[in-house]
Structures are given as structure tokens and as C-alpha cells.
């Protein structure tokens, strides 16, 4: 089974956007590592002229900063790796919690991201048969719209639960004026390709993406 041609195009655009976001994060990591190493060099050069000026504690803190930044870089690269492999198979069995983790990680790379709190799932981690790349795209669009509505000081709660009509990813904490993600033609393509349902409960401030347990069966 493959995606509709339009939806495949959307997936490609998503991968491009995701790669750009991640490369920007890596650049920031590298810039911080480069400057911190440069500062250590500057301080050592000063100490060579006047050994009394050496501050071992400061050098230690700067060394820790480099280690922390490199670890942050590893996490970003791991995220990129997972995103890149999501296109390996057009349709696959996926752990929805894992998809939410990857997309949340991508969202955290955005300058305007809000806080994200994951709500614990009751019971087993839901797995569904779907198009992983397109599911990531749809979730990312929902999260991006939520960030823009909530702002960097706000917080979004994300939960995954199994319901009677499939697996639901719920974004909670949306403001009263939130208009959903329905206006984009790309979203409509993704919705159709994933046989997904999108519902906005304006009173509760919750956006729900409901996905079928099996895309093959939903399309049959």
C-alpha cells in the first residue's frame, strides 16, 4: 500500500522542514561548543601571561558546558535519524507514543515552542498500522499550530489513549481562540491518507487526532 501522490508530496515537504529545523539546532550546538572552547583558549592564554589569573573552577564549568552541549547534539542527531527512517516503509506498525516523542522532540527545536507535558497512558502503549511519515507530519502540524496559539510561556499536555474508534492523540490546554488545523489543504490530504479524524473541543481546549488501528482495514 502506498500513500496518495499528493500526500507523498506533503511527507516530502515535512521531511524538508524537519531537516531544516534540526540542522538549525545542530548549528546552535556547534556554535556554543565552538565559543566555549574558544573561551577556554582565551582564558588559558591570559593565564600564560599571568598564572594568578587561572580559575580552575571556571575552566571546569566550561568543560561541563561542552559535554552538555555535545550530549544535546547527540539527542538532536538521534531525532534526525528516527525521522529519516520513518520513510523506510510507506506503511508500518508503529508505537504511537514513540511517534509523539519524536514529534515533540522536533517541536522543542522550534524557538517559539511551548512547554510540553506528556500525559501517562493507561495500559499498553498503543500500536497502530499506519503511514509513519505522514502521521508525524500531521502531528507536527497540530503541535506547531498549538505552539503558535499557546505561546512560549504556555504549556500543552499531550496524551495518547485507545478508544472505541481507534487511537487518539489529544493536545490539551489550547486557548479559547484556537481555530484548529483544518484550513490547510495539506491537512486534508494527510487526513484522507491516514483515514484520520480531527476534532476540536473548543470548550475544553482539546484537539483530538483519531487514527484507525489498521490503515489497511480502514481503507478496505
Amino acid at each position, binding site marked *: 500500500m502506498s500513500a496518495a501522490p499528493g500526500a507523498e508530496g506533503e511527507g516530502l515537504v515535512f521531511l524538508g522542514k524537519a531537516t531544516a529545523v534540526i540542522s538549525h539546532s545542530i*548549528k546552535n550546538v556547534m556554535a556554543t561548543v565552538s565559543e566555549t572552547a574558544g573561551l577556554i583558549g582565551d582564558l588559558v592564554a591570559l593565564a600564560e601571561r599571568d598564572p594568578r589569573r587561572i580559575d580552575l573552577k571556571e575552566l571546569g564549568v566550561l568543560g561541563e558546558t561542552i559535554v552538555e552541549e555535545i550530549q544535546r547534539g547527540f539527542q538532536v542527531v538521534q531525532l534526525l535519524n528516527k525521522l529519516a527512517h520513518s520513510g523506510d516503509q510507506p506503511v508500518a506498525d508503529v508505537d504511537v507514543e514513540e511517534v509523539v516523542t519524536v514529534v515533540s522532540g522536533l517541536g522543542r527545536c522550534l524557538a*517559539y515552542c511551548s512547554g510540553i507535558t506528556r500525559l501517562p497512558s493507561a495500559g499498553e502503549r498503543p500500536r497502530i498500522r499506519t503511514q509513519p511519515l505522514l502521521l508525524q507530519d500531521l502531528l507536527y502540524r497540530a503541535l506547531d499550530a498549538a505552539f503558535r496559539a499557546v505561546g512560549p510561556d504556555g504549556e500543552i499536555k499531550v496524551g495518547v489513549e485507545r478508544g472505541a474508534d481507534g487511537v487518539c492523540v489529544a493536545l490539551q490546554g489550547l486557548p479559547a481562540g484556537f481555530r484548529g488545523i483544518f484550513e490547510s489543504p495539506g491537512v486534508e490530504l494527510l487526513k484522507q491518507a491516514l483515514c484520520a479524524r480531527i476534532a476540536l473541543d473548543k470548550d475544553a481546549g482539546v484537539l483530538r487526532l483519531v487514527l484507525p488501528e489498521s490503515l489497511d482495514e480502514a481503507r478496505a
Partner: protein
Amino acid sequence: MTAEQKKIRLLMVDDNVKFLETVSKRLGLKDFDVTAADDGKKAIKAAGKGEFDIALVDLRMPSLDGTEVLKVLKKKHKFLEVVVLTGHATINSAVECTKLGAFDYLEKPYEFDQLLDVLKRAYQNRLRRKFERDEKRLRDLEVLSMGSSPMAILKSLMNLDDGEK
């Protein structure tokens, strides 16, 4: 450089706090007088309180984007040179920043010496623009001082003074 000698007053804004602190410290060791702000609103507030020669502005920041900061700084501080420093460099944003009056646009990561060179050129440009303005003022003053009544000269002089610090 002795304590009496003038330092280049630099306002730096970046939401990556570790990067901000590290670059501020490095520039401080190079005799810049650095004020650091971790968001755009704080930067605009700091610029309103103090006088700066150069601002070093990140583009993607929460709450207030770097291009908005650039617009406000260029509008309110005529001789302030703004250098954009970003990990989100695109041709479009470089063109936009240039149109908004940015002196230069640096992409992260970069060589520190490259940053120093850009800051040096930005400071030279600020001085050049100020001196050009002052030369024009001197010429205007000479013209005004001939033939008018003392009160007319005084009024014209007041027009020449734009009240900038």
C-alpha cells in the same frame, strides 16, 4: 587598554543563554562593554536605558522575533549598527534584514575572528555616519550664522539639534 579608555558598547541578544554568556565573556575579554539580553523585549528595554554602539541580534527567539527587534532598534536608535547572528540563516531572511537596515548578517557557527571583524566594521560605519552627520551640521551652522537675526539663528540651531545623546 586602560580603564579610562572608551570601550565599544555592545548589546547582545540571544535566547541560547549558554551561547550568550560565553560570547559576552569572550567579547568582554576583547575590551567590549557587553550588555546581554536573553530575549527581544529585554534587549529593547536595555537599548532604551543605555547608549550602545552596536547590537548583535539573534533572529529566532520566543516572544519577539529578531527582525522585530531589528526594526525597533533601527527606528529608535539612529546610529546604532545592528549585526544579525543566526543559526536560521536563509537568503530570504538575509535580504529582509538588510532591507531593515542590518549592517551585516552572520551565520552560526562562525569563526570568532570573523565576528570581531564584522563588529569592527560596524563600529567604523557608525562613526563614519556620525561624522558625516556632524560635518553636514557644521556646514549648516556656517550658513545659518550669516545674515539672520539672532532669534532666527537660535530657532534654526534648535532645529539642527535632534536631541540625540
